[in-house]
């Protein structure tokens, strides 16, 4: 024991440890949690059992007892704590644990459940009750399995506790199980990414099974209506203006809420959204990300520490593949969309620049390569737009940021702003600090990690949304207006553009490394998780998304 871990080990965590040491580490040490249908079924089954009943009678109590439910016990001797579903008493005292699933065919208990019931037996015995065995009740197969509390049980429990404590004292999670049938139904599979890890660390040559949970059912909410107010009514988000309801949305359907400009939100709405895991982001009317709020920040402190050290060390090794991938994706976008073909020499230059990233020794060198590539890329970007007037305006100015001089520049800036807020959201979801980046300097209030991580996605998501929105006629010259601070979207143009952006996020790509199909939305999260694994030292290198 290194004194870092909590003194008492929950009996349930011993179950997790026996099932999968990595799951145990992620849940207990990193405090990661994700529900799925199976855990919801377990919670539902425990509804009645989990209600505390009368207290447990003293060990020397005479006569029969009623069954006592939800008994909480701790014992410093064993270093254990736990809540026992039910304690029966006849001649001896028996801990009973309910399991939602089926019993194994061989008539014994599942090893993980056995260790857990042994821990409960140990807790009861230490509290002075006579225990000879424990019982597991498997609901699905209506089967009761007895587990003996004997010398062998004591020995196995002691070994499991020692091993679990040893694992918990480690600086990083144990490696994932290999090709295990346990993974597909594990609720933490999207956090653990077992097959992806094993592929990237070359522990397995097989391409990953598609274990990453499907796209979530929740979607973003954008409130652009000035003067609107976001509140909550029962389990619904209610958006009103001057007392009139504009929209009512189930909280179950909300992944994030984006408030643009003069829009209010109530404290009740904030709390409910946080409870549903949905962050709230405040943006200026023109799309600039001003701030955000989430519930409790991630409890994965080790990741935060690791990120800070990488940030201090400069993180060039992480930035290189991101910029290299960005340049390759820019090249692909030009090749795919240019009506008459980009000169071969330019394409070759882009490819070479992408390769040069690998050898960049300093941050400014890498940024120089990026800048050269961007000049080549944006020299040709205008030609990808079919409307000649709009393309002409862009070609006259080139890529300009502040102020945006023409519709294409305005749309590009707006698209990057949308992407930034989504990458920020992905970082928050994984427990990364969006402000501590590798390549972009963490200065001038810029979420530099989010900017780093979005590099590879700029051509894939932002620039391709701009191209499509113009070329499919979703937006045109009439979607913009000229102001003293440059070209800006009209209200209708902005809505249309957000719609196109969100459509792009729904689209699927074949993940270039893992081979399965996955939406862009989900890819952002997977890449943030891979980045986190690199920071914490589980993976050697960051593998960026590159499309063909």
């Amino acid at each position: 024991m290194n004194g870092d871990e909590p003194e008492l080990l929950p009996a349930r965590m011993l179950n997790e440890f026996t099932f999968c040491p990595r799951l145990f580490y992620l849940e207990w040490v990193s405090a990661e949690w994700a529900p799925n249908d199976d855990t919801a079924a377990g919670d539902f089954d425990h509804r009645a059992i989990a209600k505390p009943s009368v207290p447990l009678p003293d060990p020397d109590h005479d006569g029969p007892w009623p069954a006592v439910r939800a008994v909480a016990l701790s014992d410093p001797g064993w270093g254990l704590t736990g809540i026992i579903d039910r304690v029966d008493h006849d001649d001896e005292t028996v801990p009973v644990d309910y399991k939602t699933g089926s019993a194994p065919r061989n008539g014994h208990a599942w090893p993980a459940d056995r260790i857990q019931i042994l821990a409960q037996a140990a807790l009861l015995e230490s509290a002075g009750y006579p225990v000879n065995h424990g019982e597991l009740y498997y609901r699905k197969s209506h089967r009761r399995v007895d587990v003996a509390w004997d010398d062998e049980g004591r020995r196995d429990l002691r070994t499991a506790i020692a091993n679990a404590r040893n694992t918990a004292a480690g600086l990083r999670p144990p490696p994932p199980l290999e090709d295990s049938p346990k993974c597909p139904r594990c609720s933490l599979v999207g956090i653990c990414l077992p097959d992806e890890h094993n592929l990237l660390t070359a522990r397995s040559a097989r391409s990953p099974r598609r274990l990453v949970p499907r796209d979530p059912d929740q979607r973003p909410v954008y409130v652009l209506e000035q003067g609107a107010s976001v509140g909550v009514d029962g389990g619904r988000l209610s958006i009103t203006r001057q007392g009139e309801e504009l929209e009512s949305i189930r909280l179950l359907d909300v992944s994030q809420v984006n408030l643009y400009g003069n829009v209010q939100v109530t404290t009740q709405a904030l709390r409910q959204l946080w409870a549903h895991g949905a962050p709230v982001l405040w943006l200026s009317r023109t799309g600039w990300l001003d701030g955000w709020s989430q519930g409790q920040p991630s409890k994965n402190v080790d990741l935060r520490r690791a990120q800070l050290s990488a940030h201090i060390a400069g993180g060039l090794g992480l930035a290189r593949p991101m910029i290299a991938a960005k340049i390759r994706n820019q090249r692909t976008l030009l090749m795919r969309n240019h009506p008459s073909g980009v000169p071969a020499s330019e394409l070759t230059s882009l490819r070479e620049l992408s390769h040069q990233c690998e050898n960049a020794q300093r941050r400014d060198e890498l940024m120089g390569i990026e800048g050269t590539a961007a000049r080549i890329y944006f020299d040709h970007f205008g030609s990808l737009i079919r409307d000649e007037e709009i393309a002409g305006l862009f070609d006259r100015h080139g890529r300009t940021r502040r102020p945006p001089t023409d519709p294409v520049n305005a749309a590009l800036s707006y698209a990057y702003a949308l992407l930034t807020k989504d990458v920020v959201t992905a970082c928050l979801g994984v427990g990364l600090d969006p402000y501590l980046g590798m390549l972009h300097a963490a200065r001038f209030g810029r979420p530099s990690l989010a900017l780093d991580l979005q590099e590879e996605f700029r051509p894939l998501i932002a620039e391709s949304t701009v191209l499509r929105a113009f070329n499919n006629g979703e937006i045109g010259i009439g979607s913009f207006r000229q102001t003293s601070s440059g070209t800006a979207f009209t209200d209708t143009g902005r809505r249309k553009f957000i719609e196109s952006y969100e459509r792009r996020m729904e689209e699927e790509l074949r993940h270039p490394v893992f081979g399965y199909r996955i939406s862009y939305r989900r890819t952002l999260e997977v890449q943030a998780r891979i980045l986190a694994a690199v920071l914490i030292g589980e993976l050697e290198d960051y593998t960026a998304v590159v499309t063909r």
Partner: protein
Amino acid sequence: MSRRRYLIAYDIADPKRLRQVIKIMESYGTRLQYSVFLCDLSGAESLHWRGDILDVIELSKDSVVSIDLGPTLKPAEINLLGLPRQLPAQGVHII
């Protein structure tokens, strides 16, 4: 996207419990008729719904019926006659 669509209807004998049930139903679905809702729910969400309802209703006096209309990507067809009704919709909201 693993949600399924359920048609859920209820008869609640007591006005107080009825109000509580309506509150729960509104947070899980879209009202189709006075005591009929359409709810698009994942496996976990439908268990939460069930737990919330069981906490409120009296099993000997009230009745709640839920009919599975299939996955939300391909739900059973719904035909409406008369007044228009809103069906549950998924996706991004831009207000």
